[in-house]
């Protein structure tokens, strides 16, 4: 199963390398990864998606929490509550005279933007969840996709909750760390 994991980390050099090194040293795979500063400039948010069974993902979570520079980790896929994910993709499609209208119609249906055009190609900017992005890629496939660039998923929980509460200190409270909690394996 694909898991969407959100990680708040110290915004310091080398922290991304630590996360990536842990994944590779422990033989886990990252499918996508996106990193950027949060509203608090000392904290960055890493969103990554990883495929694995429950036990593997539980180990990933524990190993992430073990890293000193990791402040908070949540697996949106298994956590209570709904969450939203978005990804942005730039798609360069081969666009011959006879295909242009069809490509632009497809773009409209998906509320994509055409951000670049040349005699042979159109470049679309699409934002959406994974399903939507995959759907438009499939529809554009027959025209000839020349290149794509994806940002990787970002995610946030729905509603007013936040990953880190200013008043709760480290956010690595014993119960939330997982293993002590009877309900969490």
């Amino acid at each position: 199963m694909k898991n969407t994991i959100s990680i708040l980390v110290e915004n310091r050099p080398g922290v991304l390398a630590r996360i990536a090194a842990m994944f590779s040293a422990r033989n886990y795979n990252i499918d996508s990864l996106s990193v950027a500063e949060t509203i608090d400039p000392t904290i960055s948010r890493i969103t990554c998606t990883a495929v694995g069974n429950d036990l593997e993902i539980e180990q990933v979570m524990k190993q992430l929490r073990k890293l000193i520079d990791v402040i908070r980790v949540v697996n949106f896929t298994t956590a209570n509550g709904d969450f939203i994910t978005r990804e942005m993709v730039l798609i360069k499609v081969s666009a011959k005279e006879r295909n242009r209208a069809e490509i632009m119609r497809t773009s409209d249906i998906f509320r994509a933007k055409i951000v670049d055009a040349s005699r042979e190609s159109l470049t679309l900017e699409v934002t959406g969840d994974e399903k939507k992005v995959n759907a438009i890629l499939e529809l554009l496939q027959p025209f000839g996709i020349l290149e794509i660039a994806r940002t990787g998923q970002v995610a946030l929980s729905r509603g007013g909750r936040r990953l880190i509460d200013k008043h709760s200190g480290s956010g690595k409270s014993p119960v939330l760390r997982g293993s002590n909690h009877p309900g969490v394996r």
Partner: protein
Amino acid sequence: MKRRTGAKIIFEGFLREGVEVIFGYPGGAVIHLYDELINHPQIKHVLVRHEQAAIHAADGYARATGKPGVCLVTSGPGATNVVTGVVTAFMDSIPIVVLTGQVATHQIGNDAFQEADILGITRTCTKHNYLVKNTGDLARVIREAFHIASTGRPGPVVVDLPKDVITGEASLENPERFEIRGYAPVTSGHPGQIKLAVREILKAKKPVIYAGGGIIHSGSQEELLALAELARIPVTVTLLGLGGFPGDHPLFLGMLGMHGTYAANAAITQCDLLIAIGSRFDDRVTGKVESFAPSARIIHVDIDPSSISKNVTVNVPIVGDAKNILTRMVKLLKEHGDVWQAARKPWLKEVRQYAAEHPLCYEPSKDVIKPQYVIEQIRRLTGGQAIIATEVGQHQMWTAQFYQFTQPRTILSSGGLGTMGYGLPAAIGAQVAFPGRIVFDIAGEGGFQMNVQELATAVQYRLPIKVAILNNHSLGMVRQWQELFFDKRYSETSLDVQPDFVRLAEAYGAVGLRADHPRDVVPCLEKALSIQGPVVMDFIVDPEENVFPMVPPGHGIDQMILAKPDKKAKKVVPLTFPS
């Protein structure tokens, strides 16, 4: 505020942390730190002969004392030479602060002379590591490094120090308060989980305690003894757990796992409740996991949440410090009075029967020295009071089996990584910490030769370490596997060409002794113990001797080779246990 150099700030940090000794080796990138060292005569520096020995010595010091070891080396090759020791400490959860020199910040990344990306190299084998880029951060980083190394699940922390950070100046702030928001180890166990564990113990008919290095790290040997005696639960320990429970106690089953006792492995196979404390279900312990404690419910106490349900899924996880959790468990159990006296009788009888059926044994000889005999005599002559370091291999397993450790922090052995060359420097670290105690390095001739240069260190600091080489002229453990599982096709395991260890010891200024007959063993040991300085004893032992029992690789611990297998029948016979 007065400004100070980075070097001064680092040493003031050492003093604040109570550092007594540094194991190190100088070089260009740390030359200013070595200059500052002269101003601090209260901090002893031990000059080793190879950086790998510096970190193993710091490791031995930490294992023997419980205090974090400190290691100081230069950049580039100095730093890369400590990597094996960093991983050794990481695998066995040993607190060490490793300071490595680094080229100046403006040179980093330029392939400068003696530059190595030690931060990148040690990222996945340290508990944490730092590259300090500003002198102003030094005081805080030193404080944090010691804190991280020695709290929670202990481990090595590398602090990389560019030359200009050491020589730069900053005003010293006393970082009495610091916050690491991403680091808050859980120490006190969840009360609900502890209650659940107690309920399991009350319910169990055949419980076994399986204790590891966590008992030693948390100093909870007394609490463990209290739990075992109160609820009358037999105890088995891992290699790193040796000394955490008295080896001569009637409830002690011996070590478990690949070279564990029949009693320990049989008890694990038959138990209905496994209480794992500060142990991590290592593959050398579990064998094939499907056959490990197949009918047991499992309680797992560990300070590291990632150790829990990593290899084996457990029923009652308790994250926290073993001392704290065991104390509370014992308290809760006491409320139930002594309900175990009668209830445990059949189980303890069964377990004692296992021990009686197949005790640890070897065939004594009048003509050739049996390695186990040497270990037994070391045990007898030191009254079990010595600190014993080992290298890795057959002698290590025989030491674990036959020394009967009774006190914590008396065995220094690389368990997780299995680092040959560890023993002699680790013995140096322990002897520096305890000049008055007897410290042995029980070694094979292979491992001993991997850091033999440290004899010079032992001689220089007048460290009366006794090295007992159990010399079988081969890489015995690999040879044993080749004998048993590769049809005696011995490939590159002969060490027939070797130095004359007696003369080698003498060349270093130590004393060399040799014994090649059983009758010479005790006189040789007695003589060594009467000598004030370092002694190397070369015991020429039976080259055919193997370590048994043995769980063949890939098998479960319910299948063991108990003694030298019949030459015709090489197959491993699964043992049947009375049901």
